[in-house]
Protein backbone atom coordinates (compact mmCIF):
# COMPACT_ATOMS: atom_id res chain seq x y z
CA UNK A 1 0.00 0.00 0.00
CA UNK A 2 2.89 2.29 0.95
CA UNK A 3 4.44 1.63 -2.43
CA UNK A 4 1.20 2.49 -4.21
CA UNK A 5 0.88 5.81 -2.38
CA UNK A 6 4.52 6.66 -3.03
CA UNK A 7 4.05 6.04 -6.72
CA UNK A 8 1.28 8.65 -6.98
CA UNK A 9 3.11 11.08 -4.73
CA UNK A 10 6.09 10.85 -7.05
CA UNK A 11 3.84 11.17 -10.07
CA UNK A 12 2.65 14.48 -8.66
CA UNK A 13 6.23 15.66 -8.09
CA UNK A 14 7.40 14.60 -11.54
CA UNK A 15 4.40 15.27 -13.81
CA UNK A 16 2.07 17.59 -11.88
CA UNK A 17 -0.82 15.07 -12.04
CA UNK A 18 -2.24 15.23 -8.54
CA UNK A 19 -4.29 12.18 -7.60
CA UNK A 20 -4.18 13.37 -4.03
CA UNK A 21 -6.77 10.90 -2.78
CA UNK A 22 -4.49 8.02 -3.75
CA UNK A 23 -1.68 9.02 -1.44
CA UNK A 24 -3.20 11.07 1.35
CA UNK A 25 -5.27 9.20 3.92
CA UNK A 26 -7.55 12.17 4.62
CA UNK A 27 -8.58 12.64 0.97
CA UNK A 28 -8.73 8.91 0.45
CA UNK A 29 -11.29 8.62 3.26
CA UNK A 30 -13.27 11.51 1.80
CA UNK A 31 -13.49 9.81 -1.61
CA UNK A 32 -14.49 6.51 -0.05
CA UNK A 33 -17.22 8.23 1.93
CA UNK A 34 -18.41 10.10 -1.19
CA UNK A 35 -18.57 6.88 -3.16
CA UNK A 36 -20.53 5.18 -0.41
CA UNK A 37 -23.06 8.02 -0.18
CA UNK A 38 -23.46 7.96 -3.97
CA UNK A 39 -24.13 4.25 -3.97
CA UNK A 40 -26.68 4.56 -1.18
CA UNK A 41 -28.33 7.45 -3.00
CA UNK A 42 -28.50 5.52 -6.27
CA UNK A 43 -29.90 2.35 -4.70
CA UNK A 44 -32.50 4.23 -2.65
CA UNK A 45 -33.68 6.40 -5.57
CA UNK A 46 -33.79 3.40 -7.87
CA UNK A 47 -35.95 1.42 -5.49
CA UNK A 48 -38.19 4.37 -4.74
CA UNK A 49 -38.65 5.12 -8.44
CA UNK A 50 -39.63 1.49 -9.08
CA UNK A 51 -42.19 1.61 -6.27
CA UNK A 52 -43.60 4.86 -7.68
CA UNK A 53 -43.77 3.25 -11.13
CA UNK A 54 -45.47 0.11 -9.79
CA UNK A 55 -48.08 2.02 -7.80
CA UNK A 56 -48.57 4.72 -10.45
CA UNK A 57 -49.12 2.23 -13.26
CA UNK A 58 -51.67 0.47 -11.09
CA UNK A 59 -53.44 3.71 -10.20
CA UNK A 60 -53.55 4.68 -13.87
CA UNK A 61 -55.96 1.81 -14.43
CA UNK A 62 -58.17 2.83 -11.51
CA UNK A 63 -61.89 3.27 -11.99
CA UNK A 64 -61.82 6.68 -10.36
CA UNK A 65 -61.34 9.49 -12.84
CA UNK A 66 -59.85 11.69 -10.12
CA UNK A 67 -57.10 9.18 -9.38
CA UNK A 68 -56.31 8.83 -13.08
CA UNK A 69 -56.13 12.59 -13.51
CA UNK A 70 -53.83 13.00 -10.51
CA UNK A 71 -51.43 10.45 -12.00
CA UNK A 72 -51.60 12.10 -15.43
CA UNK A 73 -50.87 15.49 -13.86
CA UNK A 74 -47.98 14.11 -11.85
CA UNK A 75 -46.42 12.63 -14.98
CA UNK A 76 -46.78 15.86 -16.93
CA UNK A 77 -45.17 17.95 -14.20
CA UNK A 78 -42.23 15.64 -13.52
CA UNK A 79 -41.46 14.78 -17.11
CA UNK A 80 -41.53 18.34 -18.31
CA UNK A 81 -39.50 20.19 -15.70
CA UNK A 82 -35.73 19.96 -15.10
CA UNK A 83 -34.80 17.45 -12.39
CA UNK A 84 -32.43 19.99 -10.84
CA UNK A 85 -35.32 22.42 -10.36
CA UNK A 86 -37.33 19.58 -8.84
CA UNK A 87 -34.61 18.80 -6.30
CA UNK A 88 -34.29 22.44 -5.28
CA UNK A 89 -38.06 22.75 -5.11
CA UNK A 90 -38.43 19.74 -2.82
CA UNK A 91 -35.59 20.79 -0.56
CA UNK A 92 -36.20 24.52 -0.29
CA UNK A 93 -39.97 24.80 -0.80
CA UNK A 94 -41.55 21.61 0.48
CA UNK A 95 -38.82 21.13 3.07
CA UNK A 96 -39.54 24.58 4.46
CA UNK A 97 -43.27 24.01 4.65
CA UNK A 98 -42.88 20.99 6.88
CA UNK A 99 -42.57 21.25 10.66
CA UNK A 100 -39.06 21.48 12.11
CA UNK A 101 -37.47 20.64 15.44
CA UNK A 102 -34.83 22.33 17.57
CA UNK A 103 -31.53 20.59 16.82
CA UNK A 104 -29.46 22.39 19.44
CA UNK A 105 -29.58 26.02 18.48
CA UNK A 106 -31.00 25.78 14.96
CA UNK A 107 -34.15 24.45 13.38
CA UNK A 108 -33.77 21.22 11.43
CA UNK A 109 -36.25 19.37 9.25
CA UNK A 110 -37.18 15.76 9.85
CA UNK A 111 -36.02 14.89 6.35
CA UNK A 112 -32.39 15.70 5.58
CA UNK A 113 -30.93 16.65 2.21
CA UNK A 114 -30.21 13.00 1.43
CA UNK A 115 -33.85 12.14 2.08
CA UNK A 116 -35.09 14.95 -0.15
CA UNK A 117 -32.73 13.88 -2.91
CA UNK A 118 -34.14 10.34 -2.78
CA UNK A 119 -37.71 11.60 -2.79
CA UNK A 120 -37.30 14.05 -5.65
CA UNK A 121 -35.12 11.77 -7.79
CA UNK A 122 -37.49 8.87 -7.10
CA UNK A 123 -40.49 10.89 -8.24
CA UNK A 124 -38.57 12.19 -11.24
CA UNK A 125 -37.53 8.76 -12.52
CA UNK A 126 -40.80 7.29 -11.23
CA UNK A 127 -42.82 9.43 -13.63
CA UNK A 128 -41.00 7.78 -16.51
CA UNK A 129 -41.34 4.36 -14.89
CA UNK A 130 -45.13 4.76 -14.74
CA UNK A 131 -45.24 5.29 -18.48
CA UNK A 132 -42.80 2.47 -19.11
CA UNK A 133 -44.78 0.01 -17.00
CA UNK A 134 -47.99 1.13 -18.63
CA UNK A 135 -46.63 0.33 -22.07
CA UNK A 136 -45.78 -3.13 -20.73
CA UNK A 137 -49.24 -3.59 -19.25
CA UNK A 138 -50.81 -2.75 -22.60
CA UNK A 139 -48.84 -5.62 -24.13
CA UNK A 140 -50.43 -8.18 -21.77
CA UNK A 141 -53.31 -9.87 -23.61
CA UNK A 142 -56.79 -9.11 -22.31
CA UNK A 143 -57.53 -12.85 -22.41
CA UNK A 144 -54.79 -13.55 -19.84
CA UNK A 145 -56.34 -11.03 -17.46
CA UNK A 146 -59.74 -12.62 -18.04
CA UNK A 147 -58.39 -16.03 -17.13
CA UNK A 148 -57.23 -14.59 -13.79
CA UNK A 149 -60.58 -12.90 -13.31
CA UNK A 150 -62.43 -16.16 -14.00
CA UNK A 151 -60.30 -17.83 -11.31
CA UNK A 152 -61.51 -15.30 -8.77
CA UNK A 153 -58.58 -12.88 -8.80
CA UNK A 154 -59.43 -9.35 -7.80
CA UNK A 155 -58.06 -6.51 -9.92
CA UNK A 156 -55.22 -5.86 -7.49
CA UNK A 157 -54.30 -9.52 -7.13
CA UNK A 158 -54.17 -10.08 -10.86
CA UNK A 159 -52.03 -6.94 -11.22
CA UNK A 160 -49.56 -8.22 -8.65
CA UNK A 161 -49.40 -11.86 -9.67
CA UNK A 162 -50.13 -11.90 -13.39
CA UNK A 163 -50.20 -8.57 -15.18
CA UNK A 164 -47.22 -6.83 -13.64
CA UNK A 165 -44.82 -9.79 -13.84
CA UNK A 166 -45.61 -10.14 -17.55
CA UNK A 167 -45.55 -6.39 -18.23
CA UNK A 168 -42.24 -6.04 -16.41
CA UNK A 169 -40.52 -8.49 -18.74
CA UNK A 170 -41.78 -6.65 -21.79
CA UNK A 171 -40.56 -3.25 -20.66
CA UNK A 172 -37.15 -4.20 -19.23
CA UNK A 173 -35.15 -2.59 -22.07
CA UNK A 174 -36.94 0.76 -21.64
CA UNK A 175 -36.63 0.48 -17.87
CA UNK A 176 -32.93 -0.19 -18.24
CA UNK A 177 -32.45 3.14 -20.07
CA UNK A 178 -34.38 5.08 -17.51
CA UNK A 179 -32.51 3.59 -14.57
CA UNK A 180 -29.15 4.38 -16.17
CA UNK A 181 -30.41 7.92 -16.60
CA UNK A 182 -31.44 8.09 -12.98
CA UNK A 183 -28.04 6.83 -11.85
CA UNK A 184 -26.36 9.70 -13.67
CA UNK A 185 -28.95 12.23 -12.51
CA UNK A 186 -28.15 11.54 -8.84
CA UNK A 187 -25.12 13.87 -9.24
CA UNK A 188 -27.62 16.74 -9.14
CA UNK A 189 -28.06 16.05 -5.42
CA UNK A 190 -24.86 18.02 -5.06
CA UNK A 191 -27.04 21.12 -5.48
CA UNK A 192 -28.53 20.57 -2.03
CA UNK A 193 -25.21 19.57 -0.46
CA UNK A 194 -25.74 15.82 -0.29
CA UNK A 195 -22.16 14.64 0.29
CA UNK A 196 -22.19 12.22 -2.63
CA UNK A 197 -19.29 11.70 -5.02
CA UNK A 198 -19.81 14.77 -7.20
CA UNK A 199 -20.05 17.03 -4.17
CA UNK A 200 -17.04 15.43 -2.53
CA UNK A 201 -14.97 15.76 -5.71
CA UNK A 202 -15.84 19.44 -5.79
CA UNK A 203 -14.59 19.85 -2.22
CA UNK A 204 -11.39 18.00 -2.95
CA UNK A 205 -10.53 20.05 -6.01
CA UNK A 206 -11.27 23.26 -4.12
CA UNK A 207 -8.70 22.25 -1.53
CA UNK A 208 -6.10 20.82 -3.90
CA UNK A 209 -6.69 22.64 -7.20
CA UNK A 210 -6.71 19.36 -9.13
CA UNK A 211 -9.89 19.70 -11.19
CA UNK A 212 -8.78 17.58 -14.20
CA UNK A 213 -7.68 14.70 -11.99
CA UNK A 214 -10.94 14.70 -10.01
CA UNK A 215 -12.95 15.00 -13.22
CA UNK A 216 -11.12 12.03 -14.67
CA UNK A 217 -11.92 10.10 -11.52
CA UNK A 218 -15.61 11.05 -11.71
CA UNK A 219 -15.82 9.76 -15.27
CA UNK A 220 -14.30 6.44 -14.27
CA UNK A 221 -16.49 6.17 -11.20
CA UNK A 222 -19.76 6.71 -13.10
CA UNK A 223 -18.76 4.58 -16.09
CA UNK A 224 -18.03 1.81 -13.60
CA UNK A 225 -21.37 2.20 -11.83
CA UNK A 226 -23.33 2.27 -15.07
CA UNK A 227 -21.49 -0.84 -16.24
CA UNK A 228 -22.42 -2.64 -13.04
CA UNK A 229 -26.07 -1.58 -13.32
CA UNK A 230 -26.33 -2.60 -16.97
CA UNK A 231 -24.64 -5.92 -16.24
CA UNK A 232 -26.99 -6.57 -13.33
CA UNK A 233 -30.07 -5.71 -15.39
CA UNK A 234 -28.83 -7.94 -18.18
CA UNK A 235 -28.40 -10.87 -15.79
CA UNK A 236 -31.85 -10.20 -14.40
CA UNK A 237 -33.35 -10.16 -17.88
CA UNK A 238 -31.81 -13.54 -18.65
CA UNK A 239 -32.97 -14.96 -15.34
CA UNK A 240 -36.54 -13.82 -15.97
CA UNK A 241 -36.71 -15.06 -19.53
CA UNK A 242 -39.63 -17.43 -19.85
CA UNK A 243 -38.79 -20.69 -21.66
CA UNK A 244 -40.78 -20.97 -24.87
CA UNK A 245 -42.29 -17.50 -24.61
CA UNK A 246 -41.78 -14.38 -26.70
Amino acid at each position, binding site marked *: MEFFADYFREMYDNTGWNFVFLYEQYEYDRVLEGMWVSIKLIVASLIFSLVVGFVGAWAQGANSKIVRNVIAGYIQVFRNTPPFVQILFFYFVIGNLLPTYDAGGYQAGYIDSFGWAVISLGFFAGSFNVEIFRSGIEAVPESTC*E*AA*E*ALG*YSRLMSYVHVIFPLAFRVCLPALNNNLVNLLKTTTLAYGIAVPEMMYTANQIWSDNVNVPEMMLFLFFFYVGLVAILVYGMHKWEIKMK*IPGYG
Partner: protein
Amino acid sequence: MSDTDSNGGTGWTPDQPMVSIKDVHKSFGELEVLKGISMDIMKGECICIIGPSGSGKSTLIRCVNALNDIQQGSILVEGLEVNDPDLNKLELRKKVGMVFQQYNLFPHKTAIQNIMMAPMHVLKKEKNEVEALARELVKKVRLEGKENSYPGELSGGQQQRVAIARSLAMTPDVMLFDEVTAALDPETVKEVLTTIQDLAEEGMTCILVTHEMGFAREVANHIYFTDRGVIVEHGTPSTFFDEAKDPRTQEFLSQIL
Protein backbone atom coordinates in the same frame (compact mmCIF):
# COMPACT_ATOMS: atom_id res chain seq x y z
CA MET B 1 -67.93 -29.75 -0.81
CA SER B 2 -71.07 -30.66 1.07
CA ASP B 3 -74.42 -29.32 -0.05
CA THR B 4 -75.03 -27.52 3.19
CA ASP B 5 -72.00 -25.28 2.92
CA SER B 6 -72.24 -24.83 -0.84
CA ASN B 7 -75.61 -23.12 -0.81
CA GLY B 8 -74.05 -20.08 0.89
CA GLY B 9 -77.31 -18.97 2.44
CA THR B 10 -79.13 -18.77 -0.89
CA GLY B 11 -81.51 -21.58 0.00
CA TRP B 12 -80.46 -23.59 -3.00
CA THR B 13 -80.93 -27.34 -2.74
CA PRO B 14 -79.55 -29.99 -5.12
CA ASP B 15 -82.99 -30.87 -6.46
CA GLN B 16 -83.18 -27.39 -7.99
CA PRO B 17 -81.26 -26.54 -11.16
CA MET B 18 -77.62 -25.85 -10.44
CA VAL B 19 -77.60 -23.24 -13.16
CA SER B 20 -80.86 -21.62 -14.09
CA ILE B 21 -80.89 -19.23 -17.02
CA LYS B 22 -84.12 -17.32 -17.60
CA ASP B 23 -84.98 -15.01 -20.47
CA VAL B 24 -81.48 -13.57 -20.72
CA HIS B 25 -80.99 -10.57 -22.99
CA LYS B 26 -77.55 -9.21 -23.75
CA SER B 27 -76.49 -6.40 -26.06
CA PHE B 28 -73.15 -4.94 -27.03
CA GLY B 29 -74.21 -1.37 -27.69
CA GLU B 30 -76.82 -1.52 -30.44
CA LEU B 31 -76.17 -5.17 -31.24
CA GLU B 32 -78.46 -7.54 -29.37
CA VAL B 33 -76.55 -10.80 -29.11
CA LEU B 34 -78.78 -12.81 -26.75
CA LYS B 35 -82.50 -12.40 -27.30
CA GLY B 36 -84.18 -14.23 -24.47
CA ILE B 37 -82.29 -17.41 -23.65
CA SER B 38 -83.55 -19.85 -21.03
CA MET B 39 -82.16 -23.17 -19.90
CA ASP B 40 -81.79 -25.18 -16.71
CA ILE B 41 -78.84 -27.39 -15.88
CA MET B 42 -79.18 -29.88 -13.05
CA LYS B 43 -76.33 -30.99 -10.83
CA GLY B 44 -74.18 -33.60 -12.56
CA GLU B 45 -75.54 -32.85 -16.02
CA CYS B 46 -73.42 -32.24 -19.06
CA ILE B 47 -74.99 -30.01 -21.67
CA CYS B 48 -73.65 -28.98 -25.05
CA ILE B 49 -74.43 -25.75 -26.84
CA ILE B 50 -73.92 -25.80 -30.58
CA GLY B 51 -74.66 -23.33 -33.31
CA PRO B 52 -73.09 -21.26 -36.06
CA SER B 53 -70.27 -18.86 -35.34
CA GLY B 54 -71.50 -15.50 -34.06
CA SER B 55 -74.73 -16.91 -32.66
CA GLY B 56 -73.83 -15.84 -29.12
CA LYS B 57 -72.61 -19.10 -27.57
CA SER B 58 -69.46 -17.63 -26.02
CA THR B 59 -71.35 -14.61 -24.81
CA LEU B 60 -73.91 -16.84 -23.11
CA ILE B 61 -71.44 -18.89 -21.11
CA ARG B 62 -69.36 -15.81 -20.29
CA CYS B 63 -72.51 -14.36 -18.74
CA VAL B 64 -72.77 -17.38 -16.43
CA ASN B 65 -69.57 -16.42 -14.60
CA ALA B 66 -70.12 -12.67 -14.99
CA LEU B 67 -67.31 -12.01 -17.45
CA ASN B 68 -70.11 -10.31 -19.39
CA ASP B 69 -73.02 -8.56 -17.74
CA ILE B 70 -76.60 -8.93 -18.95
CA GLN B 71 -79.25 -6.31 -19.52
CA GLN B 72 -82.31 -8.35 -18.72
CA GLY B 73 -83.25 -11.71 -17.27
CA SER B 74 -81.79 -13.84 -14.54
CA ILE B 75 -78.98 -16.32 -14.12
CA LEU B 76 -78.94 -18.29 -10.89
CA VAL B 77 -75.88 -20.36 -10.02
CA GLU B 78 -76.74 -22.50 -7.01
CA GLY B 79 -79.24 -19.84 -6.12
CA LEU B 80 -76.76 -16.98 -6.49
CA GLU B 81 -78.16 -14.26 -8.76
CA VAL B 82 -75.53 -13.26 -11.29
CA ASN B 83 -77.56 -10.33 -12.64
CA ASP B 84 -77.24 -8.32 -9.45
CA PRO B 85 -75.15 -5.17 -9.10
CA ASP B 86 -74.15 -6.27 -5.58
CA LEU B 87 -73.10 -9.73 -6.74
CA ASN B 88 -70.15 -11.11 -4.80
CA LYS B 89 -68.08 -12.10 -7.83
CA LEU B 90 -65.61 -14.07 -5.77
CA GLU B 91 -68.42 -16.29 -4.43
CA LEU B 92 -69.62 -16.89 -7.98
CA ARG B 93 -66.19 -17.67 -9.32
CA LYS B 94 -65.49 -20.17 -6.58
CA LYS B 95 -68.51 -22.08 -7.87
CA VAL B 96 -67.83 -21.74 -11.59
CA GLY B 97 -64.67 -22.80 -13.44
CA MET B 98 -63.99 -21.73 -17.00
CA VAL B 99 -61.76 -23.06 -19.76
CA PHE B 100 -61.12 -20.94 -22.85
CA GLN B 101 -60.48 -21.75 -26.49
CA GLN B 102 -56.98 -20.21 -26.34
CA TYR B 103 -56.04 -21.86 -22.98
CA ASN B 104 -54.93 -18.47 -21.54
CA LEU B 105 -52.39 -20.00 -19.19
CA PHE B 106 -50.05 -17.73 -17.26
CA PRO B 107 -46.94 -17.95 -19.44
CA HIS B 108 -44.49 -16.98 -16.69
CA LYS B 109 -45.46 -19.90 -14.46
CA THR B 110 -44.82 -23.63 -14.85
CA ALA B 111 -47.68 -26.07 -15.36
CA ILE B 112 -47.89 -26.95 -11.68
CA GLN B 113 -47.58 -23.32 -10.63
CA ASN B 114 -50.44 -22.42 -12.97
CA ILE B 115 -52.55 -24.99 -11.17
CA MET B 116 -51.46 -23.90 -7.70
CA MET B 117 -51.69 -20.12 -8.07
CA ALA B 118 -55.39 -19.46 -7.66
CA PRO B 119 -56.00 -21.72 -4.65
CA MET B 120 -53.05 -20.06 -2.90
CA HIS B 121 -53.76 -16.46 -3.90
CA VAL B 122 -57.53 -16.47 -3.98
CA LEU B 123 -58.49 -19.15 -1.45
CA LYS B 124 -55.38 -18.50 0.72
CA LYS B 125 -54.79 -22.22 1.11
CA GLU B 126 -51.57 -23.68 2.48
CA LYS B 127 -48.89 -24.41 -0.09
CA ASN B 128 -48.46 -28.05 0.94
CA GLU B 129 -52.14 -28.78 0.73
CA VAL B 130 -52.41 -27.09 -2.67
CA GLU B 131 -49.38 -28.89 -4.00
CA ALA B 132 -50.82 -32.27 -3.07
CA LEU B 133 -54.07 -31.35 -4.83
CA ALA B 134 -52.18 -30.06 -7.86
CA ARG B 135 -50.21 -33.29 -8.20
CA GLU B 136 -53.45 -35.26 -8.10
CA LEU B 137 -54.90 -33.05 -10.82
CA VAL B 138 -51.77 -33.41 -12.95
CA LYS B 139 -52.30 -37.15 -12.78
CA LYS B 140 -55.97 -36.79 -13.57
CA VAL B 141 -55.31 -34.80 -16.76
CA ARG B 142 -52.46 -37.22 -17.59
CA LEU B 143 -49.60 -34.75 -17.53
CA GLU B 144 -47.15 -36.49 -15.21
CA GLY B 145 -43.64 -35.41 -16.05
CA LYS B 146 -44.76 -32.03 -17.41
CA GLU B 147 -45.22 -30.36 -14.02
CA ASN B 148 -42.22 -28.10 -14.41
CA SER B 149 -42.67 -27.20 -18.07
CA TYR B 150 -43.72 -23.70 -18.98
CA PRO B 151 -46.83 -23.25 -21.16
CA GLY B 152 -44.61 -22.23 -24.08
CA GLU B 153 -42.94 -25.62 -23.91
CA LEU B 154 -46.20 -27.60 -24.10
CA SER B 155 -48.37 -28.58 -27.05
CA GLY B 156 -51.84 -27.06 -27.42
CA GLY B 157 -53.52 -30.15 -26.06
CA GLN B 158 -51.20 -30.28 -23.06
CA GLN B 159 -51.76 -26.59 -22.36
CA GLN B 160 -55.49 -27.08 -22.52
CA ARG B 161 -55.30 -29.92 -20.01
CA VAL B 162 -53.25 -27.71 -17.69
CA ALA B 163 -55.98 -25.10 -18.08
CA ILE B 164 -58.61 -27.66 -17.11
CA ALA B 165 -56.58 -28.71 -14.07
CA ARG B 166 -56.07 -25.06 -13.14
CA SER B 167 -59.84 -24.55 -13.07
CA LEU B 168 -60.45 -27.77 -11.16
CA ALA B 169 -57.96 -26.72 -8.49
CA MET B 170 -60.51 -24.15 -7.36
CA THR B 171 -62.93 -27.06 -6.71
CA PRO B 172 -65.76 -25.54 -8.74
CA ASP B 173 -69.25 -27.02 -8.85
CA VAL B 174 -69.82 -26.15 -12.50
CA MET B 175 -67.36 -26.09 -15.38
CA LEU B 176 -67.74 -23.96 -18.50
CA PHE B 177 -65.89 -24.97 -21.65
CA ASP B 178 -65.85 -22.56 -24.59
CA GLU B 179 -64.81 -24.39 -27.76
CA VAL B 180 -61.83 -25.75 -25.90
CA THR B 181 -60.75 -28.03 -28.74
CA ALA B 182 -61.29 -25.58 -31.58
CA ALA B 183 -57.67 -24.41 -31.62
CA LEU B 184 -56.15 -27.88 -31.36
CA ASP B 185 -54.64 -30.28 -33.90
CA PRO B 186 -56.99 -33.15 -34.73
CA GLU B 187 -54.72 -35.66 -32.94
CA THR B 188 -54.77 -33.75 -29.67
CA VAL B 189 -58.51 -33.01 -29.67
CA LYS B 190 -59.15 -36.52 -28.41
CA GLU B 191 -56.91 -36.28 -25.34
CA VAL B 192 -58.73 -33.15 -24.20
CA LEU B 193 -62.18 -34.58 -24.91
CA THR B 194 -61.28 -37.72 -22.96
CA THR B 195 -60.34 -35.54 -20.00
CA ILE B 196 -63.68 -33.74 -20.14
CA GLN B 197 -65.57 -37.00 -20.57
CA ASP B 198 -63.86 -38.40 -17.46
CA LEU B 199 -64.97 -35.32 -15.57
CA ALA B 200 -68.55 -35.58 -16.75
CA GLU B 201 -68.67 -39.24 -15.83
CA GLU B 202 -67.45 -38.42 -12.34
CA GLY B 203 -70.49 -36.20 -11.99
CA MET B 204 -69.09 -32.74 -12.66
CA THR B 205 -71.71 -30.35 -13.96
CA CYS B 206 -70.47 -29.22 -17.38
CA ILE B 207 -71.62 -26.65 -19.89
CA LEU B 208 -69.79 -26.98 -23.17
CA VAL B 209 -69.81 -24.95 -26.32
CA THR B 210 -68.52 -27.38 -28.89
CA HIS B 211 -68.56 -28.48 -32.48
CA GLU B 212 -67.50 -32.02 -31.63
CA MET B 213 -70.72 -33.78 -32.56
CA GLY B 214 -69.46 -37.26 -31.71
CA PHE B 215 -68.61 -36.08 -28.25
CA ALA B 216 -71.95 -34.30 -27.85
CA ARG B 217 -73.88 -37.38 -28.87
CA GLU B 218 -71.95 -39.63 -26.52
CA VAL B 219 -71.48 -37.47 -23.44
CA ALA B 220 -74.17 -34.77 -23.35
CA ASN B 221 -77.40 -35.18 -21.42
CA HIS B 222 -78.96 -32.40 -23.40
CA ILE B 223 -78.09 -30.41 -26.50
CA TYR B 224 -79.07 -26.84 -27.30
CA PHE B 225 -78.86 -25.41 -30.79
CA THR B 226 -78.60 -21.62 -30.90
CA ASP B 227 -78.77 -19.24 -33.82
CA ARG B 228 -78.71 -15.45 -33.80
CA GLY B 229 -79.23 -15.18 -30.08
CA VAL B 230 -82.11 -17.59 -29.59
CA ILE B 231 -82.41 -21.29 -28.81
CA VAL B 232 -83.79 -22.79 -31.99
CA GLU B 233 -84.12 -26.33 -30.78
CA HIS B 234 -83.03 -28.54 -27.92
CA GLY B 235 -83.34 -32.10 -26.77
CA THR B 236 -81.54 -35.25 -25.75
CA PRO B 237 -78.77 -36.30 -28.14
CA SER B 238 -80.85 -38.95 -29.84
CA THR B 239 -83.90 -36.77 -30.46
CA PHE B 240 -81.70 -33.83 -31.40
CA PHE B 241 -79.54 -35.61 -33.95
CA ASP B 242 -82.12 -37.97 -35.39
CA GLU B 243 -85.32 -35.95 -35.27
CA ALA B 244 -84.26 -32.32 -35.69
CA LYS B 245 -87.33 -30.44 -36.88
CA ASP B 246 -86.18 -26.89 -37.51
CA PRO B 247 -84.74 -26.31 -41.00
CA ARG B 248 -81.89 -24.21 -39.51
CA THR B 249 -80.84 -27.11 -37.31
CA GLN B 250 -81.10 -29.55 -40.18
CA GLU B 251 -79.00 -27.33 -42.39
CA PHE B 252 -76.35 -26.82 -39.68
CA LEU B 253 -76.16 -30.54 -38.96
CA SER B 254 -75.90 -31.43 -42.61
CA GLN B 255 -72.96 -29.08 -42.98
CA ILE B 256 -71.10 -30.25 -39.94
CA LEU B 257 -71.71 -34.00 -39.93
